[in-house]
Each structure stands twice: as structure tokens, then as C-alpha cells.
């Protein structure tokens, strides 16, 4: 770990107290006093340790076994993993997941950035928070409901989206947003972006508000127009927050399940199958728990790459400055 500066001295400062200053408070209280660190940290860490370490170890265990409802589990070493590497469906769903992340996160980022920039222009605090609330409503909708309601809105026969496009004269025949393989994938990505964009807007708005106002005033005096200001002030100052937003949104988009499951269930013809729905199908529908565990571990390892970048980038900073 790099130096943690103020945080470390702050925490150690308090930790240095011996407890003798408290005077006579009785044996029980004194014990609580002496062991206070132990008392506040042990129960949460024990609880967390149990509900994290137990399933994690079990995941590793099942991934090296064939699990069958009718016969005892059989140890097969790393065969499940070898099978993952030869599984065309794994590569297909991985490819879909990557495309999904790229599409959803970039659309959500652009939408979120637009919203953040626009909200940031609003002077009145009340109007500003009203807009924030209205945009956050999309975030508040449970993801499975997002999927279901968009599935309804995109319905080929009586969906409102087809209705609107027809009335505007843009299409003459209803589109099968969910039934056509290519359209289905695009629809799923756009709906996911719809649900993700408010989060991006919130993060980027927080970032925008840290940029000092006088920078823009100075730029106005110098006669720089909006685009110049955006390029020379906003983008450089927003970069750290934007990077974090992209990173965390990618992590969340990569694990996506509910939206896809509710909208298409992975179909039509596997066109929208992503890693998460594949793991669900193998593990729960087909009861191949061992193989699903191996897939899960591969997915976790891929996520670890993002997590490592995130922890290195964000947490070091936060540990230093918090």
C-alpha cells in the first residue's frame, strides 16, 4: 500500500489512547472500553466472513465436481474449466456480454453526460433538484420491471413504441423489437442504457459541481465559446469522475441479468444470451451446478480485472484523501 497520510495518523491518533484516563467505571465497562475495537469489528466481520467465505469456498469446490441430483458428487479436477474453454456457447455469450457492456455503457454515458451538463446549467436550486428527481425515477424502477415494461412498450402488435413510430409516419409496418434477433439485441442494450443513464448523470453531475466556477468566468472574459470551454475546462476536470463512472458502470453492465431475462430470456435464437443468463440456464434450468460454478469462476476472474483497476485507482485515492 502506498502512503495513506492523513488517514493513517488520524486513525492511529485515536488508537494510541491507553484507556487509563477514563477513571473508575467498573469491570464490565472497562472491558468494553479496552476491547472496543474488538467489539465493533468482530460481529460484522464474522457475519460477513461467513456469508462471503463459505459460499466462495463452496463455489470452488463445486467447480471441480460433477454434480448430479441422483448420484453423489464426483471429483473431476479442472475438467469443467477445460470444458468452458471449448464451449462455443460460452464464447457467444461472452461476446454478447462485451458488446452489451460497450453499447449500454456508451449510450448511458452520453445520455448521462448530456443530462448532467444540462442540469448543471440550471441556476435555480429547486428546479435543479426537480430535474434530478425526474431523471432518477428511471433508476428507481426495479431492473426486472424495467425489462418487463419495455418488453410491453416494444411489443410488435400493440406496443406504444410501434404506435408512436406509425403515427409519426416513420414506419409503415410494425417492427418486431423483441422477436427479430438483431433488433432484440439493440433493444436490450438501449433499455439497459435507459436504466443506467441516471446513475451516470448523478456521478457526472457531482463531478461537474467540483469544477471551480471562476474557470468558466475567466474563459468567458477571454471570449472562449461553449465548445472551447467544454474541451479545455470541463473534459480535463471531469476525467477522473468520468473514468470511475465508466468503470463501475461497465462492472454492473457486465453482470446484468434482470433486464435481459425479463425482456427476452436470452432469445430469440440466443441472440441476447449474455454470460449471466447462460450461467442461470446451465445452473438452474439444466441443474449442471458444477459446470455453472466453473462458468461463474471464469466470470468472476474477468470481473477481477475491472475490480483491480478500480481498487487501485479509486480506493488508493479515497484511502488517502477521505
Amino acid at each position, binding site marked *: 500500500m502506498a502512503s495513506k497520510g492523513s488517514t493513517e495518523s*488520524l*486513525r492511529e491518533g485515536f488508537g494510541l489512547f491507553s484507556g487509563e484516563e477514563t477513571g473508575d467505571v467498573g469491570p464490565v465497562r472497562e472491558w468494553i472500553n479496552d476491547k472496543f475495537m474488538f467489539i465493533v469489528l468482530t460481529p460484522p466481520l464474522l457475519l460477513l466472513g461467513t456469508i462471503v467465505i463459505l459460499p466462495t469456498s463452496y*463455489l470452488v469446490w463445486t467447480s471441480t465436481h460433477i454434480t448430479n441430483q441422483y448420484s453423489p458428487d464426483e471429483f473431476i479436477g479442472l475438467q469443467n474449466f477445460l470444458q468452458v474453454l471449448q464451449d462455443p456457447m460460452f464464447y457467444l455469450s461472452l461476446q454478447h456480454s462485451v458488446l452489451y457492456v460497450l453499447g449500454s455503457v456508451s449510450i448511458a454515458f452520453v445520455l448521462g453526460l448530456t443530462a448532467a451538463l444540462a442540469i448543471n446549467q440550471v441556476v435555480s436550486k429547486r428546479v435543479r433538484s426537480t430535474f434530478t428527481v425526474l*431523471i432518477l425515477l428511471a433508476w428507481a424502477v426495479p431492473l426486472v420491471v424495467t425489462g*418487463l415494461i419495455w418488453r410491453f412498450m416494444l411489443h410488435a402488435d400493440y406496443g406504444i413504441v410501434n404506435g408512436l413510430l406509425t403515427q409519426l409516419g416513420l414506419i409503415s409496418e410494425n417492427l418486431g423489437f423483441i422477436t427479430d434477433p438483431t433488433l432484440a439485441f439493440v433493444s436490450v442494450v438501449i433499455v439497459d442504457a435507459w436504466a443506467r443513464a441516471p446513475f451516470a448523470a448523478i456521478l457526472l453531475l457531482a463531478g461537474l459541481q467540483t469544477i471551480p466556477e471562476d474557470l468558466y468566468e475567466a474563459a468567458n472574459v477571454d471570449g472562449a465559446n461553449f465548445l472551447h470551454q467544454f474541451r479545455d475546462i470541463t473534459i480535463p476536470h471531469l476525467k477522473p469522475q468520468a473514468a470511475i463512472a465508466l468503470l463501475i458502470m461497465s462492472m454492473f453492465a457486465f453482470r446484468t441479468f434482470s433486464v435481459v431475462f425479463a425482456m427476452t430470456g436470452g432469445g430469440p435464437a440466443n441472440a441476447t444470451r449474455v454470460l449471466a443468463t447462460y450461467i442461470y440456464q446451465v445452473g438452474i434450468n439444466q441443474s449442471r451446478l458444477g459446470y455453472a460454478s466453473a462458468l461463474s469462476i471464469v466470470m468472476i476472474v474477468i470481473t477481477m480485472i475491472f475490480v483491480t483497476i478500480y481498487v487501485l485507482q479509486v480506493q488508493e485515492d479515497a484511502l488517502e484523501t477521505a
Partner: protein
Amino acid sequence: MATKDSVLGSERRYEMIQQVGRIVTGKYVVTAVLTALVLYFTFPVYWTFVSSIKTLDAIHAFPPNIVPEQLIAPVWQNYADLWFQRAFNMFTLNSLVVAVVTTVLVVSFGTLAGYGFSRFRFPYDDYVFIGILGARLLPPIGMLVPFYRLFSIGDLIDTRLALIMVYTYMNLPLVIWLMRNYFVSIPADLDEAAYIDGATRFQTFKDIILPLAKPGVAACAILTFLFSWREFLFAFVLTFTDASKTIPVGAMMMIEDVVILWNYLAAAGFIAMLPALVFVVLFQRHIVSGLTAGAIKG
């Protein structure tokens, strides 16, 4: 683009263009953009509600009216049917119990641990802490198989307790991290002053520091409640009777019929999103601060 070259030509004309540009970008464009975005983001919520007060026949009409007559004469039958015939009274109770118990558990344990991490040092504490963050960032779907099987072995499947345990697993790391950051922002001088004045460590925590951390606790409680309320994957896999299903699962169940009952589905969806909508309107600031602190600082 107006560049510096044109400024040399005519300073006044350039300033006029600037002025016009500022008014346009500063007002109309912003208003137009915000209106369009708000319409885009709120329309599905509106449409869920509108569809939830329609009959199935009205839903099958094409093209649908954006402002249907049902807004004046709503059909509340869908909600009544869900509540009395499709066990939504049970699902609502389950969702509430699971979300409330999880929130109480996660927030109390998370606050304790957050305080501990903000004030004390112990061997390898940074590694433990990074481990907690890692637990939060890993995809929950990866834990689907072990949780599913362990709960089956332990005979906990199809119980609320199983859901509470999974949601604790998913939310506790975030709350520890948020609370730790919140406590770090409260100067340790306050602890020391109280301590020197003769307060015990517990009193210091309870009477001095915890009251100051209330906004942080509120943000954590709201986020945990919403995350538990909206969770679908585990609720779907770990429950199979009405006694433990939650509202998002109940909404998804409408899709399994041969004919999808969109009117019921919309009503179920609206019930599922309702608490979140209310929370967002009432506690917007807490949600925003929790989300940003949770992402930017963790």
C-alpha cells in the same frame, strides 16, 4: 465555430455572436434537452401506471393513445385482482419483511464496522478492507450456484431468511465502506475530546459520533432498503411458493401464462416501483449522496 481569427476582423460582431450563442445555449437548448430527457426517462413510469388502470382489451388496442380515457375513469380492478387472487398481499408482506430486516441488520452491523475501520488500526486492516470492497464488486450471479445449493442442503430454500442472508451479503460491504468514509469525515479530535472528558468509548460512539453520522446512516438505510426491495435474481431462484416470493418475482410470474396479462403485469410493476418512486421524491439528496459516495469513493 467562431475562432480567434474572426475576432481580429470584428470584435463587436464576435461579441454579438457570443451573446446570442450564450442565450441560446444557456436557455432554450438546455430547456429543450432537459425536457426531452425527462420525457424519455419518465415516460415508461407513466406508461406503467396508465397500463395498470386499463382493461386487457384496452391494452390490445392499436395504436394506443398516449393520454387514454382510463386516466379519467381508471379501472382499479387489476390491483384488486392482484391483491386478492394472485397473492400480492403475501408478496408485499414478504418484500417488506425481507427489505426491513435486511436494512436493520446491514445498517447496524455496517455502522459498527465502519466506525471500527475509521478509528482503529489492526494488523492487515487495509487488506481486510480491500477484501470487503472486493466482495461488494464481484458479480452476485457468480454466487448463485453456491447459495442455491447451500440453502438447499441447509433446508433454507424458499424462506425469507435465505433472501435476508443473500441481501446482507450484497449490501453489507457497501454500507461498511460508506459508513467508514462518513466517520473518517468526522474529526477524530471529537472522539479524543469526549474520551479525555471521561466518556467511555461506547459513550463517545453512541452520544457524540453516531448523532453526527445520521445523514450517512440514512443514506445507507435508504439504499439498502431499495436494493433489497428491487432484487430479482436471487428472489426468483431461491423461492417457489407464495410464502416467500417477493413483488419483483410476482411481476415476472405474469409472463409465464400463455397469454401475457399485461394489465396485471403493469399493476404489479407499478407496485414494485412505487416505494422507490416515493423514496426518490422524498429523499433525493440522501440517495444522490449515497450513490456518489459509494461510487466515487468506493
